[in-house]
């Protein structure tokens, strides 16, 4: 087996095991690079983080309470490329998209709503087959 083929083999092995070996690094990334950016909002205390690959689609549903101010942050490693997020109502209608807003969005909740945060990583044709990285959805609140 020549050097070129060995390299291909190594890439194949690594790609197939990335979701498994990335969990610890993912939590470490979230703690050091994501959670500090939630201040002055109080983090909800639950870290939703996972290693995703290009083209993944992830959702989180939650009640947002009237009178509270919220920060939604979708924090991802640069290796994953563009990560989009949408906020959807109970009828699956998109009421907000982060295009043009960056990776975090602050808002005041005037009436209590049950909403879903949908996170979409760039598809493989856009980002390349070997792209994967840690993505975390953080929700902070303050009065």
């Amino acid at each position, binding site marked *: 087996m020549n050097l070129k083929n060995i390299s291909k083999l190594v890439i194949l092995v690594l790609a197939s095991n990335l979701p498994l070996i990335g969990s610890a690094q993912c939590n470490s990334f979230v703690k050091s690079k994501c959670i500090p950016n939630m201040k002055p909002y109080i983090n909800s205390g639950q870290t939703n983080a996972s290693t995703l690959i290009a083209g993944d689609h992830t959702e989180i549903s939650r009640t947002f309470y009237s009178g509270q101010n919220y920060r939604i942050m979708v924090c991802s490693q640069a290796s994953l490329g563009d990560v989009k997020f949408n906020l959807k109502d109970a009828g699956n209608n998109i009421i907000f998209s982060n295009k043009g807003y960056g990776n975090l969005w602050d808002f005041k909740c005037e*009436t*209590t*709503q049950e909403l879903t945060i949908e996170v979409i990583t760039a598809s493989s044709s856009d980002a390349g087959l070997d792209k994967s990285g840690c993505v975390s959805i953080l929700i902070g609140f303050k009065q």
Partner: protein
Amino acid sequence: MNSNRLKKQIGTAILISASTLLIYSCGSKAPSEAKEVKDSTATVADKGKKPQNEFFTIPSPIELAQIMKRAGVIYNKDLLNSPKNVSNYSSNNSKALNLGVYGADLSYSTIFNQTQESVNYLNCTKKLADGLGITGAFDESTLKRMDANSGNSDSLLQIISDSFSNSNDALKENPQSSNFALCVVGGWIEGLYIGTQVAKTTKNNTDIITRIAELKGSLKNLVMLIESRKDAEGMASVLDDLKAIQSIYNEGNAAGDSKPTVTTDSKTNVVSIGGKSSFTLSKDQLEKITLKAESLRNSIIKS
């Protein structure tokens, strides 16, 4: 590259991958929370393409305490679990459930600026966390930071939130354990218990009842979390209890037919989500939820 050589290389790759998988599954930590909850979550997925990963969240005890306070809940330390009970909890399940209960009580006492009570409840959470093998979440440095920030409630809430976050992360590291889920259940039940007890004794309780009605969505998430661990010891009865409360919520139109809208104030640039939202509970539903919450919470703190 000829086809035989390619087959050989792919075979080698599969062998190495399988070996790595075997090593991982025998000696490493949990797959993420997302993957465990994935299969039991169908509400949103049924409406369109099924997501590859679904995460889980319910409001933290701090947030529940905040919204209850704003709704008119007053501080009554007699409603909270006595710190003296902390030494009664010997099994892992009772420690985890009551870590959640005391976490909620810590949040309530801090939201209402009851500094000494907060320290007492922090000591309770520390003792139970230690008993579950969690180190570093509620430790001496947490106590010192709380002491140094005793006059600043925002800082105190940040410190407690950090501790909850560390504690949850530590609890989730063991995939076979039900401790994380039980801790979340304990905190949620304590919040429901306090809210319903205060509603029972408060004359103008409309806002408090609305807050209790709004807990329906988080209960749904909680049930999904427990269902993903229903085979673990003690989880079946917890699931039955939560589903009993859920069935009371489902008797009426507690979720309402919400229609959110997003607006931006042109002067301040503040973005708001408003629109129609109707969360209600009938008197009968409230009474049943109050009784169920009381019974379940008292069984937890006596366990």
